[in-house]
């Protein structure tokens, strides 16, 4: 592992009550990034949010047959990049096919992936050996 690199491998029960715990871990990570030159409070909020949104997706859609009772999250931070991977075991979806929210309409839903895409520098969702993985990357400079 590179100097100053951080790797966190987290499993939490797939229940929404643990969203705040995961969000808090994200915020704490942002506050540790001494080298980040931007606003760390904003970065903390953003990491909290993308972790929350991604974990909600994994809880809601990623475990149709109750194969798993936990959500698996991997977080890697190097000098320049923050990588988050969240695994699920659902049917999967094509992230590029998800439309932007209808900004003129008033839908209760459909803003989660938009928020993730807006706040991260790259987002992809793909099939992995174990299931599906949502990969999100943010440049840290």
């Amino acid at each position, binding site marked *: 592992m590179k100097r100053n690199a951080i790797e966190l491998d987290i499993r939490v029960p797939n229940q929404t009550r643990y969203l705040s715990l995961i*969000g808090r871990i994200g915020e704490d990570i942002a506050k540790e990034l001494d080298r980040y030159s931007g606003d760390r409070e904003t970065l903390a909020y953003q990491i909290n949010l993308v972790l929350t949104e991604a974990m*909600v997706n994994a809880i809601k859609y990623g475990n149709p047959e109750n194969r798993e009772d936990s959500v698996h999250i991997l977080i890697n931070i190097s000098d320049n990049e923050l990588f988050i991977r969240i695994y699920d075991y659902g049917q999967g979806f094509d992230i590029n096919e998800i439309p932007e929210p209808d900004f003129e309409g008033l839908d*209760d839903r459909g803003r989660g992936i938009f*928020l993730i895409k807006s706040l991260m520098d790259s987002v992809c969702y793909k099939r992995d050996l174990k299931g599906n993985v949502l990969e999100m990357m943010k440049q840290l400079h």
Partner: protein
Amino acid sequence: MNLTIEKIKDVVVLHIKEERLDAHNSGELKAEMQRLFEEGNKQLLIELKDVRFIDSSGLGALVSGFKNATTYQGDLKLSSLQPQVKSMFELTRLHRVFEIFPSTAEALER
């Protein structure tokens, strides 16, 4: 969800006493707003002073409340948004939908 409800003249003020409004607790807020409109209340004010974090589910619950207000010919306003929470309304353009007041006192003056 921790919230207190206060009626000031014709306005029902919901003080949200949570640091987070997310997929874990936003369903309860949605149900509470629905109940208040069903009971005949017309004007709801949601005070978000203590809310430091909102996700898409929290935003969705407030949109649902806004639609209920329209259905019941009432209105739903928001007050005291923290800066990061306000930025989520801006990012999703919902600041154009809601009447947002800097403080509860200012919202009640209207």
